[in-house]
């Protein structure tokens, strides 16, 4: 049974109008990139907003992308960096969050604040120092360098969100586990983690997207051909004097795909994660 407020027609029209206009606004650039990636260079500039038709349709951009440079290699690099970072952030973030929410120890609050500090201070401020460290450790031009930096970048938010969720897991449940003789690790992996899965998905999405899209650290720490990520690879086609727009747009369109797949995997959990606090 719908309540009076939600069934009123003007209200629902207004709500839909706002939501639809926001969706259009958010999707417009993405759609524009995808459409134009299927057009000839002339068509892109003559009428950037029109759909590709029989005359303007062209796969030249995709051909260039696949022929020039090692795009599958770039994809592989991006995927390795993103997935490995994701696993590390989720594992260590959840462990730290569990410790903060579960155990009473001296300096618990301070430790929590210290670990959350990274949310407010951008890691890019430390780029020079990070580069020096990586040079010193001999990790320049390796994927390891990127994974380490991104893990550090992702942990604060992960710990912050997960520790809030872990606090909501019933103490009695954990105590029941202790009385059943479960070790703290078993309690963490078998009881608590399954219950905060929606929160884990939320963290996964928020961690994954900035890493996939990042240009800064790949450019500085791992610009070599064999460690290039997709976003860095696409820069090949942007020159100082000539930019191959077909190729750039095609590369970007391709780059959307894997992250879209990952997002769909997490999204069902994500919705539950966002609403789980509000709706009981």
């Amino acid at each position: 049974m719908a309540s009076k407020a939600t069934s009123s027609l003007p209200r629902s029209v207004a709500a839909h109008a706002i939501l639809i206009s926001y969706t259009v606004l958010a999707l417009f650039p993405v759609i524009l990139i995808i459409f134009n990636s299927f057009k000839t260079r002339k068509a892109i500039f003559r009428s950037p907003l029109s759909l590709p038709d029989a005359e303007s349709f062209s796969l030249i951009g995709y051909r260039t992308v696949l022929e020039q440079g090692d795009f599958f290699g770039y994809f592989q690099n991006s995927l390795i960096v993103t997935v490995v970072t994701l696993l590390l952030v989720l594992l260590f973030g959840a462990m730290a969050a569990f410790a903060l929410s579960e155990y009473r120890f001296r300096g618990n609050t301070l430790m929590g604040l210290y670990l959350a500090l990274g949310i407010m201070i951008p890691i890019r401020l430390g780029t020079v120092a990070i580069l020096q460290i990586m040079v010193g450790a001999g990790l320049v031009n390796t994927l390891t360098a990127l994974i380490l930096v991104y893990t550090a970048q992702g942990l604060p938010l992960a710990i912050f969100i997960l520790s809030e969720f872990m606090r909501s897991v019933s103490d009695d449940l954990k105590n029941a586990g202790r009385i059943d003789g479960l070790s703290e690790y078993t309690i963490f992996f078998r009881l608590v983690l399954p219950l905060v899965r929606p929160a884990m998905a939320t963290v996964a999405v928020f961690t994954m997207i900035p890493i996939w899209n990042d240009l800064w650290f790949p450019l500085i720490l791992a610009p070599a051909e064999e460690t290039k990520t997709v976003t860095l690879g696409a820069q090949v086609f942007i020159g100082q004097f000539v930019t191959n727009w077909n190729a750039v747009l095609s590369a970007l369109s391709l780059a959307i795909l894997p992250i879209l797949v990952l997002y769909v995997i997490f999204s069902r959990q994500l919705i539950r994660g966002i609403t789980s606090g509000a709706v009981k």
Partner: protein
Amino acid sequence: MSTISLKSVRKSFGKTEVIHGIDVEVADGEFIVIVGPSGCGKSTVLRMVAGLETVTGGDIAIDGNRVNDLEPMERNIAMVFQNYALYPHMSVFDNMAYGLKIAGMPKAEIAERVQTAAKMLQLEEYLTRKPRQLSGGQRQRVAMGRAIVREPSAFLFDEPLSNLDAKLRVQMRLEIKQLQRSLGTTSLYVTHDQVEAMTLADRLIVMNAGVAEQIDTPMHVYEHPASIFVAGFIGSPSMNFLPAKIDTGRSTLSLESGANVSAEGLVLAAQSGREIIIGIRPEHLELASPDRADLTLHIAAVETLGADTLVHGSIAGAGVDGTKNASFAARLPGNARIAEGETLPLRIADGALHLFDRQSEKRIAEI
């Protein structure tokens, strides 16, 4: 089968002491109920026995072995929680079997134990279900099943019935009692509900502000409450209290209202002139003709319960809490026709007076 012994057990959180030394010896197979208002420390005591809270002073022994520094599992106890604390992502069978599996018991034996417990608790047809597909009562049974399959030295219950509705609570109360009787397992049961406490317990521990005010059988606690707190906490409606003074000659007590109450039959250890508080249970008052009445009640509200009629009102003369007119309640037979606004002459039943010291609030012993 085993005994539990607490010797001057204390607990502090930081500098605040919340349990001020509890001593109790629980005999083998005994059902002990710890009862008290919320925040009195009853759950803390239970959690210390379970090993979920550290003990900051004194000793806890199970079966004669000091367990202060043992992990919960090593104490061989099982606990039933208020919100059931079932593993939400496991089936009923796995919920009961998980502890045994962790302990490395052979699969065949686990299955047998779970089947036996499920049969005892009428859970056989639900073994494959998840906890969220069960009703509150069934979940509570699963929680008890999880405790039973471990065949522990002792059961610890932490307000297990608080989340159930009234009718189910009565039914589960009986089931718990029967189960404990048939298994003969030593049990510690925490509740704030005095009806649960009275009906389940072999012995009661009445706690207040971190102190065990009285440890005794339910009937003895009811008939000889050790302090004003215990007297007021056990019994519903709670006991009426009036300030009084022992008259010279010690055969009567004079009340603030000017009335005198006969103290005949009470051999008073206290000297005459001593200021005391008398306690009278609402059920120990009867209607009387005005000339034979001990007290006159000004009725403010009448609650007809069918079998009983509860009458609430006030008595002339200051109450123990400093109010101008002492509030007072009486439990009369259901057929008593009483209207609000009337005055009611009441007689105190013979031998129903409780005497307490006004300073220490402790019971004045009858000799």
